[in-house]
């Protein structure tokens, strides 16, 4: 929850700062800008609301027969949601901020800008939704029969994998959404193309968090043989950490590629097809590090 609040606070701060900038530029429509800022902040906050729900559940859930395994699962759930909310919180601040600036620039298209912002920041929430799913599974699944020794590491690793990988994807998706709101304000007649490019770019930027989700699911649903050696447990923990940290960089990087693609589609809409292809190739290459991290995790899970 604490970690989740950090992200949402940064995102909302960014929105508010951009709103101030916008009001000072075009103070006649400050009411519109203020309204839009509140809507944008509400969406940015939803990531931290997810974290709040998980935190409340963690506090008030009465777990029958407390075992170390359940404790590990709850710990993993908390970490997962906390980290997962950071990226989405910051990310969905960007479209909010850019929309405020855009409204001050082009008040006529404010409704179109708001729609675009809502689509963009809703897609930004996807990594946070993934981490919430993993957190809920961790909290409510029954791990009763599983042997304690390697399984605790698998559970914490599952939380780390999705939680950390969601940071990059949430942030990256936000960059793309911000650029698209800027683009709509610049050239309102390109809205359709810009939104399509944004959605494809964000979808690809989310791939690292999907890898994180996949590794989490494998860690959660595979039953591991009991072993007292530390190496087995550490391998599972490391598998989660590997995909988690490995996903941060590609998530942000893909977001930057998508940001560039979206920005230039709005400026030069005739070349939209070519720009999207170049964006995808760039994203595919920058994603390869996330794929390597996932391969390392799978080797750690299935071979070691």
């Amino acid at each position, binding site marked *: 929850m604490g970690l989740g609040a950090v992200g949402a606070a940064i995102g909302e701060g960014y929105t508010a700062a951009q709103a101030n900038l916008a009001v000072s530029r075009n103070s006649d429509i400050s009411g519109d800008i203020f309204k839009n800022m509140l809507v944008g902040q509400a969406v940015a906050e939803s990531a931290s609301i997810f974290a709040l729900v998980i935190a409340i559940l963690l506090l008030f859930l009465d777990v029958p027969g407390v075992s170390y395994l359940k404790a590990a699962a709850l710990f993993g759930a908390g970490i997962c949601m906390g980290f997962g909310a950071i990226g989405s919180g910051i990310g969905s601040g960007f479209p909010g901020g850019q929309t405020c600036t855009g409204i001050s620039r082009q008040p006529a298209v404010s409704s179109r800008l708001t729609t675009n912002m809502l689509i963009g920041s809703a*897609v930004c929430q996807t990594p946070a939704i993934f981490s*919430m799913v993993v957190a809920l599974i961790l909290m409510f699944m029954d791990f009763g029969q599983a042997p304690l020794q390697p399984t605790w590491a698998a559970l914490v690793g599952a939380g780390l994998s999705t939680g950390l990988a969601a940071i990059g994807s949430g942030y990256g998706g936000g960059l793309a959404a911000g650029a698209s709101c800027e683009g709509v304000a610049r050239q309102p007649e390109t809205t359709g193309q810009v939104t399509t490019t944004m959605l494809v770019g964000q*979808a690809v930027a989310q791939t690292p968090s999907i890898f994180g989700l996949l590794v989490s699911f494998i860690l959660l649903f595979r039953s591991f043989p009991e072993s007292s050696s530390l190496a087995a447990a550490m391998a599972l923990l490391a598998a989660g950490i590997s995909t988690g940290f490995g996903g941060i960089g590609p998530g942000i990087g893909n977001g930057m590629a998508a940001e560039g693609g979206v920005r230039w589609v709005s400026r030069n809409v005739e070349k939209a097809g070519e720009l999207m*292809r170049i964006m*995808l190739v760039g994203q595919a290459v920058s994603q390869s590090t996330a794929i*390597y991290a996932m391969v390392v995790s799978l080797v750690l899970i299935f071979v070691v």
Partner: protein
Amino acid sequence: MGELGRIHQLVFPLFGHTAAINLEVVVMTWIVMAALIVFGYLSARKRDILPRPIQVVGELFVGQLYGLTEDALDKEGARTYGPLIVALFLFLLFSNWLGIIPHLEEPTKDLNTPLSLGLMGFAIAHYAGIRSKGFKAYASEYFAPIFFMMPLNVIGELAKIVSISFRLFGNIMGGSIIILVVSYLTYNLVLPPFLYAFFGLFVGTIQAFVFTMLTVVYISVQVK
């Protein structure tokens, strides 16, 4: 707690292929297909210069999606792959919207549905690539920068299937789990209709669109 206990049963069919759960998914898929056939029949039954409302809706879908396919591929490609793309989008859209009707569930909530659609898109994209470039040019792309990059290129291609199908599955299943938990926490008061509107209608539409666009883009990357 009893309500929440159902969560893992929503999740468990992932690995244990219990027939009961899959049967449900198959029935839901049939419902979607039946709805699509009815929709198609109604919109194309009395075609006219002055279209009736339902024909307008049908033409809107077909026209928009053909336009998007033409942007990514060209006119020739749009004629070949357009029907596939329109059918894929409408199927996903109806599937994702099915969950807002009580007692019905989204077929896309079971991993098998998005995974098979993802495999289908993958196979079509690679078949299109081989047909347009010839097998030699197609195969040499795997050795693209240097020859020892081959295994990584193959893994990268396979990762596309994983990412496209898990994106849809994760969003739809995540939405339904969140609706279930929040409904339980608020005793089904006030909030759930809004959540259904957001996760069912809004996110469902966006994810259907994203899945369709990515399939188009994968085909266009292979063809060109």
